[in-house]
């Protein structure tokens, strides 16, 4: 129960984290390079030259905002981390961090704002310096909401990436003009050479897809294994407990307590034992999730409100199935046993 809650909570935490930053980027249509992934953390998307101009001239387009970004490895203190660097205009809010915990909200030209997870991973604080290209960037602030598990988002001033050779935007975020039909506009943009347009939901889903593809099967395996192992343990415990108390059940039968009542007692006791295990497991799961978040901030857990009741129902179902064996054992107990003990 505990493992299932933590694993599932981590899964939903990852799903939420991977779109934590992308979903703050406004725009109903997201335009990337044709054939490149729309997932920011593993994309090679570079819009072709002239794409921005063509977008702005497309009928029905209200506004176009480019996102300049680049995946880089940052190395410091003999540690390294994958980072999606985003250029942030010092005056315009587009592309800014989700939240700033410490330091500056907009990076200066020689600064980088890093997520708290990256700061934890690379042992960095505000004011520290880290190598970048042929120079160094000073940590100007610590941000939050930019942890995407496999990588984090970091922010540099406009022009920093251009100095490193990134001259094309990775994506463009488009707002349709008032009254324009979004789907028609989507079609018109996708017809342009070298670009691919996504609805906002599709863009976010692309960012979640890798998590679903890689993490979900692992979580499912863990859930199935946990249910099997947990169910077996519950079944064995209930069975052992029943066998240990067969004299008592035999006594009840000998005294004339109806068979249905005796079996009801077994089911009730199994239910209580399973219920206590379920509640304990869920509480322990929350405690473990909290502990994991302290030890490794990367693994944030997000336990949906529906998960504990579903786990409780699943646990009770497993307990019910596990109670079949002890119930059958008790049904077979000969009441004449009482004369032989």
């Amino acid at each position, binding site marked *: 129960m505990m493992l299932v809650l933590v694993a599932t909570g981590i899964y939903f935490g990852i799903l939420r984290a991977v779109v934590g930053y992308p979903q703050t980027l406004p725009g109903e249509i997201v335009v990337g390079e044709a054939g490149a992934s729309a997932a920011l953390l593993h994309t090679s998307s570079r819009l072709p030259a002239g794409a921005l101009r063509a977008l702005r001239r497309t009928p029905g387009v209200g506004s176009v905002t480019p996102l300049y970004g680049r995946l880089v490895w940052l190395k410091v203190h003999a540690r390294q981390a994958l980072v999606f660097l985003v250029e942030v205009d010092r005056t315009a809010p587009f592309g800014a961090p989700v939240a700033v915990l410490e330091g500056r909200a907009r990076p200066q030209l020689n600064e980088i704002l890093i997520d708290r997870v990256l700061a934890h991973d690379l042992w960095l604080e505000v004011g520290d310096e880290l190598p970048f290209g042929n120079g160094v960037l000073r940590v100007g602030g610590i941000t939050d909401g930019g942890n995407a598990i496999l990588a984090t988002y970091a922010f540099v001033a406009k022009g920093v990436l251009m100095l490193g050779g990134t001259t094309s935007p990775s994506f463009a975020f488009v707002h349709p003009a008032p009254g324009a039909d979004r789907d028609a506009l989507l079609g018109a943009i996708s017809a342009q050479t070298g670009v691919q347009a996504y609805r906002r939901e599709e863009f976010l889903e692309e960012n979640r897809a890798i998590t679903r593809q890689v993490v979900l099967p692992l979580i499912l395996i863990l859930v199935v294994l946990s249910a099997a192992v947990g169910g077996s343990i519950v079944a064995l415990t209930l069975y052992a407990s029943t066998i240990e108390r067969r*004299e*008592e059940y035999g*006594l*009840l*039968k*000998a*005294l*004339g*307590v*109806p*068979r249905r*009542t005796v079996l009801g007692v077994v089911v009730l006791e199994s239910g209580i034992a399973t219920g206590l295990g379920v509640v304990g497991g869920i509480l322990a799961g929350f405690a473990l999730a909290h502990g994991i978040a302290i030890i490794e901030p990367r693994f944030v857990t997000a336990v949906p409100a529906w998960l504990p009741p579903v786990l409780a129902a699943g646990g009770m179902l497993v307990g019910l199935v596990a109670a079949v064996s002890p119930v059958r054992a008790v049904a077979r107990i000969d*009441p*004449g046993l*009482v*004369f*032989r*003990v």
Partner: protein
Amino acid sequence: MSELLRAVHLSKTWAPDGPAPVHAVCDVSLAVGGGETVAINGPSGSGKTTLLSILGGLLRPDAGQIWLDGRDLAAASEAERARIRLTRIGFVFQRGLLLPTLTAHENVALVPRVAGVSRAEAAARADALLEQLGLGARAALLPAALSAGEAQRVALARALAMRPGLVLADEPTAHLDQARGGEVLAALKALTQAHGAGLVVVTHDPRAAAVADRVLHLTDGRLA
């Protein structure tokens, strides 16, 4: 003395199709009247426990009939036999056999509660019986806190809580010293008589013979 129990030509064979069938009870007939105490003794393996199981409706005989209150236990369904055990037969076992998680009072009140007696009435019966057996001050204790003699007296109270017509006791003094065994036998006899119940005691204890109205000897499954 009105006849309460009548067993006619009871037989029971263990492993009848095996290489060595055991004839535990062979053509046993007996009757027990209300308020009568019958002691059954015999060597180990003579079939005493099997006979008691049959008389108590815990075991169905291969042949014969057991009439209790005008009903044939041998022909009754399992559910009917359970109902008869619950309401008409009290059991006292060798080691008391109390439920360890219930207090002495709860152990006594359990059977009437299961039989549908109200909570207040069941509690009143338990109070009265425990008081009569000198256990009023021990009623709230768990079995683990009771001595062997006390536990056996609680078991006796439990056996009488439904005011049964018949009490069956299996070696009730086997695990008690002389003094405690004597007390339990005396209480068993006195209370069953007071309730007008018939009492069948299977025992090796020679003192049981002293308190019994009749003593029957069982040898190789046959009453002598």
